[in-house]
């Protein structure tokens, strides 16, 4: 079973990396970009078949290690079993 974890900076916390990216995108001609927030995207492969349990465990991992809840929020999604493989690492434009 796969879990996808999204770790984002809390609303009020500064995101210098996002700001810098926005600035550079503007310079590169992407003036339509009004905001950039950069977070983490974590893929967990788990030996677990119960989606509810997997989600609960992944959330615990976030609380315990993967996110710093002082400054970050997180969100966990469990990948539907059948979708396995459909979502490889292929790049897509």
């Amino acid at each position, binding site marked *: 079973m796969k879990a996808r974890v999204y770790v984002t900076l809390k609303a009020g*916390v500064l995101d*210098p*990396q996002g700001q810098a990216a926005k600035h550079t995108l503007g310079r590169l001609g992407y003036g339509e970009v009004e905001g950039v927030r950069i977070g983490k995207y974590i893929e967990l492969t788990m030996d677990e078949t119960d989606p509810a349990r997997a989600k609960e465990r992944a959330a615990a991992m976030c609380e315990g*290690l993967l996110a*710093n809840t002082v*400054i970050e929020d997180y969100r966990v999604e469990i990948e539907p079993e059948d979708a396995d493989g459909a979502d490889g690492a292929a790049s897509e434009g």
Partner: protein
Amino acid sequence: MTTTFGVLRFPGSNCDDDALRAVDVVLAPAGSRGRIIWHKDRSLGDVDAIILPGGFSYGDYLRGGAIAAHSPIMDAVAEFAAGGGPVLGICNGFQILCERGLLPGALIRNESLRFECRDTHVVTSGRQTPFTRGIAAGAVLRMSIAHAEGRYVHPDPEALWRAGQVVFRYATPAGEVSADANPNGSVLGIAGICNEAGNVVGLMPHPERACEAVLGGGGQDGRAIFESALAGGGAA
């Protein structure tokens, strides 16, 4: 009477030997001793104070200090701190203490997004801690920083200030806190803080790099921080 510092060694620490040298060699004439404590140990042994040194514990992967904060030895550190034992986190050590929740707030990427290694000056708030006992309020110390994630953030920095938990702020050589003197964008120019009780202190600049005159003109202002703990430990 000697004071013994325990210097933690995590995988990837790289200022562990430097901190050890400061307390075990440079300040030995003042009665200071040091020894290394391995991250897999569960007890600190017989020490008077703890130093969490700088470096890149676990490569600083995920977030600076995040993984080290969960090392076996950290339970003992938390217990030592709860009992009022003096704990000093330098740079990565400061990050570890924040990640562990022994100090409030967090340290994020520098405003410049770059690693910065340079001399900075910090002005002392006057908060009495085991590591600032010998340093007067308003005193300016020159110490170098070397970090990529040293920007201190806190949900309510003013409250932290009012609670007297701000210990050092980046300043000009004359002691003026200013944006220009702030090397990483820390809120309120915060370079070092302590917990409510004052026995746990974390700072980004490296006092152990400012203990010997021969080293690159780095000065010797860092000594005062370790010496304070000596006096506090009953040596002197």
